[in-house]
């Protein structure tokens, strides 16, 4: 039984996975970055499907619109060229491939087990008001702590960049 929701989910999920695969397979950094944008927009669509309007919009504004623009900006600025593809090393072929298969199987197993225990999703859209009340009342400490952490990381990056310049 395919409802419109499931159909949209399948399309978006397929786009997200295809984008992720293309991200790895592309040789040019810009094409990889574009694939990552596709993944992020598809994820935003999935959030929207879950009724999380605000999160979906923020996903596009912050990740697809701001962070990835910076990625592309840096790639353009450095004028990075195509990557050379080396033949996979023997270690990667004989140890890496089985490990990857085992890892994927494990993830699939646990997700399968978890989804069988899940209840129904939220009945309707989560309003931005509820979300902000939760964020600024209930979880205000972790929220502020995270923003503080990001600020420290930002300042650290700035200090490191400056030091390199003065040498």
């Amino acid at each position, binding site marked *: 039984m395919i409802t419109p929701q499931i159909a949209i989910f399948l399309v978006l999920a397929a786009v997200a996975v295809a984008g992720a695969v293309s991200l790895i397979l592309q040789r*040019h950094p810009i094409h990889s970055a574009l694939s990552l944008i596709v993944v992020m927009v598809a994820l935003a669509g999935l959030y929207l499907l879950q009724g999380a*309007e605000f999160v979906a919009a*923020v996903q596009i504004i912050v990740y697809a619109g701001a962070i990835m623009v910076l990625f592309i*900006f840096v790639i*353009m600025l450095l004028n990075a060229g195509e990557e050379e593809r080396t033949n996979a090393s023997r270690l990667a072929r004989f140890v890496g491939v089985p490990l990857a298969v085992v890892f994927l199987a494990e993830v699939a197993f646990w997700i399968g087990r978890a989804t069988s225990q899940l209840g129904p999703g939220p009945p309707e859209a989560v309003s931005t008001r509820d979300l902000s009340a939760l964020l600024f009342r209930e979880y205000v400490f972790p929220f502020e702590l995270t923003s503080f952490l990001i600020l420290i990381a930002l300042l650290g990056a700035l200090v490191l960049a400056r030091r390199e310049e003065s040498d």
Partner: protein
Amino acid sequence: MNELAAQHPLVIVVLPKVVILLFVMLTALAYLTWFERKVVAHIQARWGPYRVGPHGLLQPLADGVKFLFKEDVTPAGADKFAYFLAPFLALSLAITSIAVIPFGPKGLTMFGQPTPTGITNLNIGLLILFAITSMGVYGVALAGWSSNSKYPLLGGLRSSAQMISYELALTMSVVGVILMAGTFNLSEIVTAQQDFYFGFVPRWNLIGSPMPQVLGFLLFFVAAVAETNRAPFDLAEAESELVAGFHTEYSSFKFAMFFMAEYASMITVSCLATILFFGGWLSPFPQTPLFAWSHFIPAAAFAAAGLALIVHGVRYLTVFGRIVLPVLGAALCGVGVLCGQPGVIEFIQGPFWFLLKIAVFLFIYVWVRGTLPRFRYDQLMNFGWKVLLPLSIVNVVVTSLLIVLTQR
């Protein structure tokens, strides 16, 4: 038909609206080029387009045909995929944003189905607009990078840096309005502004209480002009330095798509400025019996414009103009008469005032382009980060403080 519409509202009700709005939008884009050329020409004491049709009215059509039949050149060594993607991305994103704009208060009823005036009414309408704006950078950045040419690359780099910087100020400058309205829904932001001071001064957000958003509006408009890459912030296509900036290598209709994208974002920004700060579709006159005559302003305006066009048209230089202009004038008079009919008169109020306000903003856009010299690149960056962003933060802090104080 009504039953069919109830079963498939998406196809029968929404799709016609999309098609109509797309058609109107593309025509508006074409005539915006004519409008800009005319206004800039008159600012510079020239006549502007005059040869193709009366007053150059068929010039957009001629330009469009020319763009279609020009050779479409792809530079050697260009990244084909990104080179093709960039103009499509730019134009489709710019046009999509019109989908969340509300054009009037009451919903329409099409085939027995209620539907908003405008394509859709979203709870996160404003956020969707910002999301689309933030994605708009890619069109410019990719065009610059994929052309495999140094001037476009420099133009693309400049404009990405500029758009990232001004997006912050753009987003922060509207936070005051969001705080006052308490919603991201564009229709609700407009209805929150429908009160009047002393019964006749409209309480639009520009002069709203508790905190008049004059500063917010100025910041918004400056940041928006920069965000749409328009003069005096058109560093991305500074002719004197970068030939034509990011679209130097583009020709034929791909070039036209960039052009149309720029005009489409101008329209979107004008819509947004109107909705956020100037009461959207609200009439500047209160809906009281004393001001009942204001309902006839749309009809009178159309009829007056039509009459003026007829009087001017019959004395026009060319025979073609003497035929076309009076016919156009008569059509406008017909629209005016239609707008006076009961039923239509209530519906037309919203869209009329909305479009009038948008037209004023578009004129300001062109006026600014015609009068102000271009910024230097370092001035642009300093202005964005050291003036606009701090001021917008001040605006947010003061507004939220006043809201908290007045609510007690």
